[in-house]
C-alpha cells in the first residue's frame, strides 16, 4: 500500500474556513494530521496608519459572532494609550456586555454546532445531523438553544444599541450610560435563561456518559492552561491578570502582567496555515503547548464566584485529579460558563452604581503603546498597538483566542485520527469525529458566519501519484 493523504476540506460546523489533512503511511496507519486555516485576514497590516480611536470598531469587524471580544480587548488597549483608568460603572457595563456575548456564543457552539453530534449521533447521516435534525427530533431542545442565544444577543442590543458590531464600547469606557428601563428589561429575562442553562447542564452531563471513547481520545493529553483570573483567583473575563497552570493543576505563572505578555508567549509560524502557533516561551516550541478557553478557565480558577456555577465547577473539577485534560470537556466547561455568565450578569446589574452617568474617561494620547487582554468565549484575546504621537497606529499585533489552541488542536486531531481512522476506506463517523475534535475547541477562524451545514465537504484519499483511492462528497 502506498502512502496517501486524506483531506477534509472544509471542516464543517465551525466558524470560519479550514481544512484537515491526514497522512496515511504504507501500512495504512495515520502518520500525521494537520489543521490548516485557509483564510487570511490581514487585520494587523491594514490597521496601520489608522487613528487608534477606530481600533475597537475596526478590529471588531474581524468577526460577526464575537465582535464584542474584539471591541473590549481593543478598547482596553486604547485605554492604555490614553493612560486612563476607566470609571467603575463603565468597567461593569463592559463586563456585562462581554458576558452576554459569552452566553450567546457558547449557546451557538453547544446547541447549534455540537449538539447534533451528541443527540443524533456521530455516525448519523450529515444531512440530518444539524440543527434542523434537532428541531425535528427534539424541538424543545432546539427551542432552548435559540432562546438562549437570543437572550445573549438581546442583552447586547439593550446595552449597546445593536446586536452585531455595536460601537458602544469606546476608548475610555462606553459612550452611553445604561438606563433603568433597559437594566430592568435585561433582569426580567434572566430567570428564563437560567432555567434553560440548568436544563442544558443536566442534559450535557448525561451526554458525557455516552461519549467515554471520545472523552478518552479527543485531544486528551497533558498541556498548560492559560486565562484571566480576578484578584481572588476567581473566574474573570474582562479584567484581571493572567494565570498559567500545568497539567497537574499547579500554578506556574501568577499575576502575569499583560504588558509583558511577550516574555511568556512566543508565536511560531507554520508554512501550511495562516494561523500562528503561540507557545509558552519558557518551555519552548512545541513543548510550551497550552490551551485557552472554557476548559482552561475552569482549570485555572479557584472558583467561579457565583453560587450555582461554583457547585457545578466543584463537580467538574472532581472529574480528574489535576487539571481536566480531555478537550471533549470543553463542552461541559462551556455550559458551566453560561451558567456563570447569567448569574454574574445579574450580580453586576444589581450593583448600585451600574446606572451611573460617569461611564467615560476622556484623555489624549499619553502612551505610545497599549495592550488589552480579555477572555473571549474561545479564550484569551490579546490586542497590542503602538501609535505615533498623533495617535495613528504604527504597528498592531492581535493574538486571537483560537490561535492559542492551534498546537493543541493539531495534536488533538492526530490523536483522534490515529484512534478512529485506519486503512484506505473512510467512514463518515470517523471523519466526523476528527472534525468534532476541532468543534470541541469551538474555533472562530474569524469572521465567517456561514451556516456550516450548507457548506460542502469533499474528502478524498489520494495516493502519491495523485490517484483517488476513495472519496466522499456531501453537501
Amino acid at each position, binding site marked *: 500500500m502506498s502512502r496517501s493523504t486524506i483531506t477534509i476540506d472544509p471542516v464543517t460546523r465551525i466558524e470560519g474556513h479550514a481544512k484537515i489533512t491526514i497522512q496515511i503511511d504504507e501500512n495504512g496507519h495515520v502518520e500525521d494530521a494537520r489543521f490548516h486555516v485557509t483564510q487570511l485576514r490581514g487585520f494587523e497590516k491594514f490597521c496601520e496608519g489608522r487613528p487608534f*480611536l*477606530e481600533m*475597537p470598531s475596526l478590529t471588531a469587524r474581524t468577526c460577526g459572532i464575537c465582535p464584542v471580544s474584539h471591541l473590549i480587548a481593543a478598547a482596553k488597549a486604547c485605554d492604555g494609550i490614553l493612560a486612563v483608568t476607566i470609571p467603575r460603572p463603565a468597567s461593569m457595563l463592559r463586563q456585562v456586555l462581554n458576558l452576554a456575548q459569552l452566553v450567546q456564543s457558547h449557546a451557538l457552539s453547544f446547541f447549534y454546532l455540537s449538539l447534533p453530534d451528541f443527540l443524533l449521533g456521530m455516525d448519523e447521516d450529515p444531512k440530518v445531523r444539524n440543527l434542523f435534525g434537532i428541531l425535528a427530533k427534539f424541538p424543545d431542545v432546539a427551542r432552548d438553544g435559540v432562546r438562549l442565544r437570543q437572550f445573549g444577543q438581546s442583552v447586547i442590543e439593550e446595552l449597546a444599541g445593536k446586536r452585531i458590531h455595536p460601537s458602544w464600547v469606546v476608548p475610555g469606557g462606553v459612550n452611553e450610560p445604561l438606563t433603568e428601563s433597559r437594566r430592568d428589561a435585561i433582569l426580567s429575562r434572566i430567570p428564563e435563561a437560567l432555567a434553560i442553562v440548568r436544563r442544558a447542564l443536566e442534559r450535557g452531563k448525561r451526554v458525557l456518559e455516552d461519549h467515554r471513547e471520545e472523552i478518552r481520545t479527543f485531544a486528551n493529553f497533558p498541556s498548560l492552561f492559560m486565562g484571566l483570573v480576578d484578584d481572588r483567583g476567581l473566574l474573570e473575563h474582562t479584567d484581571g491578570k493572567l494565570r498559567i497552570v500545568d497539567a497537574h493543576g499547579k500554578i506556574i505563572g501568577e499575576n502575569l502582567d499583560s504588558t509583558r505578555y511577550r516574555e511568556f508567549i512566543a508565536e511560531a509560524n507554520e508554512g501550511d496555515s495562516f494561523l500562528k502557533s503561540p507557545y509558552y516561551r519558557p518551555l519552548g516550541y512545541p513543548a510550551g503547548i497550552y490551551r485557552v478557553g472554557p476548559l482552561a478557565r475552569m482549570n485555572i480558577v479557584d472558583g467561579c464566584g457565583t453560587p450555582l456555577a461554583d457547585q457545578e465547577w466543584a463537580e467538574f473539577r472532581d472529574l480528574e485529579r489535576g487539571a481536566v485534560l480531555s478537550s471533549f470537556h470543553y463542552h461541559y466547561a462551556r455550559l458551566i460558563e453560561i451558567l456563570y455568565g447569567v448569574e454574574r450578569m445579574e450580580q453586576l446589574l444589581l450593583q448600585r452604581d451600574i446606572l451611573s452617568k460617569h461611564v467615560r474617561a476622556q484623555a*489624549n494620547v499619553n502612551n505610545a503603546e497599549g495592550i488589552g487582554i480579555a477572555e473571549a468565549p474561545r479564550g484569551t484575546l490579546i490586542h497590542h498597538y503602538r501609535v505615533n504621537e498623533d495617535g495613528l497606529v504604527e504597528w498592531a499585533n492581535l493574538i486571537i483566542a483560537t490561535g492559542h489552541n492551534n498546537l493543541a488542536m493539531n495534536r488533538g486531531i492526530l490523536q483522534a485520527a490515529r484512534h478512529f481512522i485506519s486503512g484506505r476506506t473512510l467512514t463518515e463517523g470517523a471523519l466526523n469525529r476528527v472534525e468534532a475534535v476541532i468543534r470541541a475547541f469551538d474555533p472562530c477562524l474569524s469572521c465567517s458566519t456561514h451556516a456550516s451545514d450548507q457548506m460542502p465537504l469533499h474528502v478524498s484519499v489520494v495516493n502519491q501519484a495523485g490517484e483517488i483511492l476513495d472519496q466522499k462528497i456531501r453537501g
Partner: protein
Amino acid sequence: MITGPRIKTLTIDDKPVGAREDETILTIARENGIRIPTLCHLEGLTPIGGCRLCLVEVKGIARPVAACVTSVQEGMEVTTDSPRLTQYRRMVLELLFSERNHVCSVCVSNGGCDLQDLAQEFGLTHLTVPYQYPRHKVDASHPWFTLDHNRCILCTRCVRVCDEIEGAHTWDLFGRGMQARVITDLNQPWGSSQTCTGCGKCVHVCPTGALSEKGKSVREMRKSREFLPYLRLMRQGRQV
C-alpha cells in the same frame, strides 16, 4: 421708478413658480418645497457646481445643467427627476465611492454623513466601477482635529468656509484629477499651519468623516451647520 431684480416665471416639475432673476434653480426649487439632491452645495457658501448631483433638465437644452449655479430664466421648463438624472446621480455617487476608501462601518461620521445618506437614498448597494484603493495618509497633527483624505470627496466646502466665513484661507486644493487633495497652507501638516485659527468650521461643514474632531470614536461625529446662514447674514450686515 423703482429698480430692482426682475421677476421671472418658470415651471419646475410642471409647477409654475416665480423667482427673482438673480436666483438659481436650486434656490427657487427649495423655496417651493421641491427637493434636488446636493453634496458640494451648502447654504451660506458660494455655490460651485462641483459635484454635479444637482443636475436638472431644462427643456431646449440637450445637456443637464447644475441647478446650484444656473440662474432662472423666463419661461424655463425644469425637470428635477427623471430616469436619466437618476442614472447620472448614481454614477456621480459611484465614482465618488470608488475614488477613495469610504468604509462607513469604521467611520466617525457613520450615521451622520451626507454621502452615506445619498447612497442610501439612491439604493447604492454596490458599485459598477472598480474601487481605486488609493493610499492616503491621515493627518492627525492638529491638536483638535483629524484630516482623513481617504474619506474626502473634494467638495471644497472646507476651502470655501475657511476663505469666505472665517477669512483665514488655510485650506486649498493641490494636484489635479485623481491626485487632487485638500491641503493646509503650503501643503504642510495641519498642526503646523500658521493661518489655521482652530475655529472648526471646516470640520462641521465637511459632508463626510474626512474632517473630524479628535476624541470622537466610530459613529460619534455629528456635524452642526446651523451657524453658517446666520454668520453669512451677519457678515452682510443684515439683522437675523
